[in-house]
């Protein structure tokens, strides 16, 4: 198959990774106040770790394929936030409730960063497309 948009594969993988990151951030924000998750513990913040992986198959001409960015989801290890709220049904004997240790400002800053990275990759795709189209327009009058 002809590859007209060069380098678009790694860009697509990066877009995928950024999308995963945005999904995880949305999940963190949505569960910022979940004091009791399915396991009975407060929701644990998730973080996305980016890695670069090589595609398993080599290219048909024997050249090295581009490194693709992939996202791995891991749990944040920071301890839950103890909040004094005696009336809360989840409170212990002393009135303390363990809440997820999620800082909305931090999540928002992460979201801006992920969103901008996504935009940058979209710009790369757009640029590859426009380069191909301008090349096809050589000699057109």
């Amino acid at each position, binding site marked *: 198959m002809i590859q007209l948009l060069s380098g678009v594969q790694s860009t697509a993988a990066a877009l*995928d990774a950024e999308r995963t990151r945005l999904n995880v951030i949305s999940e963190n924000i949505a569960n910022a106040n979940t004091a009791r998750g399915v396991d009975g513990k407060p929701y644990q913040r998730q973080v996305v770790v980016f890695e670069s992986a090589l595609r398993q198959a080599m290219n048909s001409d024997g050249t090295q394929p581009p490194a693709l960015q992939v996202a791995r989801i891991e749990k944040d290890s920071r301890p839950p936030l103890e909040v004094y709220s005696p009336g809360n049904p989840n409170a212990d004997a002393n009135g303390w409730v363990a809440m997820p240790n999620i800082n909305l400002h931090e999540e928002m800053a992460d979201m801006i960063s992920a969103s901008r990275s996504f935009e940058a990759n979209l710009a790369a795709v757009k640029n590859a497309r426009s380069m191909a189209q301008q090349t096809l327009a050589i000699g057109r009058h």
Partner: protein
Amino acid sequence: MSGMASRLETFSPEVMPLKPSETASPGQVSSAQPAGDSFASLLGKMVTDVSAQQNDALQSVRAVQGGQNVPLHQAVIGMEEANVSFQLMVEVRNRLLESYQEIMRMQI
């Protein structure tokens, strides 16, 4: 110098056999077969490729609309690739037709 001359003499026989085909008379040109695929089969393969690419793009768009776990950007990038391939095909066809018309306009 003499060594170089002898080398040239040993070299020239390899070049010589090429000459007769180059200076073939115009009547013999039509009988010569091109080494690779014919242009028509190349163009046909190109059309098939573009069609396959457009089918792939359509499949991924359908997968997105069908709620399968296919990212939106993958569908859009697939469509763009199909679009650029199609433009390349149209460009080749335009050039071919242009050359044909140029030949047809030729004064004899």
